[in-house]
């Protein structure tokens, strides 16, 4: 019995160590990741000033090459959504929801589409013309047909 106690402690230590390494690697991946503006538009010069990007996600009409851009709010990740609220529209969740509601009530404007997974985001970007959204760079790196326009946020 005396010899088994240290053996069990050792297994517990190894398990804890493995979990710590896993968590650290995930944290490191997020720390290194950036939020990028993404689109399926083929135009390599596609760029949007921050003021226009905010207008777009608030429901205003924003044109690019004569086409009306279609915003997609990517809600696949809680942290990503917080970054969207803080750095793109600069509003609290409540204020943003009220503003979008208000725009619909006043002029019947369409609310930005919302997606809740990476796969749906990719499908929507590829299916509907002139869509624009934001995502973790690592989520969409190398996906055929998806272009990363510029970095919106980095840690």
């Amino acid at each position: 019995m005396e010899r088994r106690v240290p053996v069990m402690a050792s297994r517990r230590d190894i398990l804890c160590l493995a979990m710590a390494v896993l968590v650290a690697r995930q944290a490191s991946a997020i720390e290194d990741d950036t939020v990028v503006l993404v689109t399926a538009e083929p135009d390599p010069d596609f760029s949007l000033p921050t003021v226009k990007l905010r207008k777009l996600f608030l429901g205003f009409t924003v044109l690019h090459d004569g086409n009306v851009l279609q915003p997609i709010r990517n809600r696949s990740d809680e942290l990503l959504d917080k970054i969207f609220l803080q750095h793109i529209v600069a509003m609290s969740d409540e204020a943003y929801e009220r503003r979008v509601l208000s725009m619909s009530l006043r002029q019947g404007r369409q609310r930005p589409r919302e997606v809740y997974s990476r796969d749906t985001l990719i499908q929507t970007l590829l299916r509907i013309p002139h869509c624009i959204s934001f995502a973790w760079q690592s989520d969409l790196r190398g996906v055929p047909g998806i272009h990363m326009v510029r970095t919106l946020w980095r840690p």
Partner: protein
Amino acid sequence: MIMARRQAFLAMLVLLAPIAQAGGSDGSDEHGRSNWLLFGNADANALEGDASLYDSTDLVVAADLLGSWETGSFRILGELFLSTEEQELERLQLGWEVVPETYAWLGRFHQPGSAWNTRYHHGQFLQPSITRPTIESWEDEGGVLPQHLVGALGETRLQLADESGFLLAAGAGIGPVMTPSGLAPVSLFHARGVERRPTFSFRAAFLQDLASDDGIELVAMRSEIGLSDSGYAGPSSHVDLDAVGLSLGWALQRWQLVSTIYAMNAKFVGDGGGNDEFFAGYLQLSRKLGRGLSLLGRFEGSAHTNDSRYLALFPDFVSQRAVFDLRWDLAPQQALSLEFAAAQGRYGNFQELRLQWSAVFP
């Protein structure tokens, strides 16, 4: 107001089409995109006052269904209000976005010269208090200013280099008619033989942030209001009503200030009488308290209203009112509000106590 059959049919067509289309995966396809919203509220109201006409209690349940559909630069917007008190097709507008952020509309719309109504329309959940200021009341709720027009409306937003900008709107069309109980709003399909006269309305605002309501705005309106169905016994055929208003909105952290003042002039055309000038306005201050609670106080005042021949046609006109409202946003899209008001009407003082649940779906 009970809707005509044609109006009800059109309302159903416009409002149900977007809902049916929204049954798809994301409410969109290559033929256009649709959107719908349902604002609902249930109110319990108690009034008590000097005169017996003020004593009442009632329960009101209401739903405001808003549907829109757009394809390319064209858009259709419909708003149908249903309650235990009335049913009305509030707005039915066919719009064309001429250039980005510049719209031309045809149909029935809320006139742009009301600072309050162009913000909240019938979306009770978005309104910070249960009641609206008396001077902003709808025609069929004792309002003294025309609020609905059938005609044409133009709206544009001009953004400056930063996020600030100008908002301009102008509307022209036929407006309400006077009845023995006050103004009756114009219907999209109004009855034959009912006298309708023109109304022109204008709004110019400078907003610190075009996506907000903070800024200063000037509103103006000229309306001819027919008297032939009002029971008025004098020689005038109509009243020329002019209104000019100045509105201010300002938010700082948890505080928000809204204030509007209107100067109005009514002239009974053809009776040789002089101009009838009066003023009305309100100052409203609200504060978010945290945990979804917010507190609001509003003072509504007026001047020269006792001598006004025009206001004498409105027995329910309230010349002064102090309103206190406590709101609790119990969920992201639901709120409970409690409101107390002390008011001064034509026949004496009265108090109002209101409790309301409001929500918006989806």
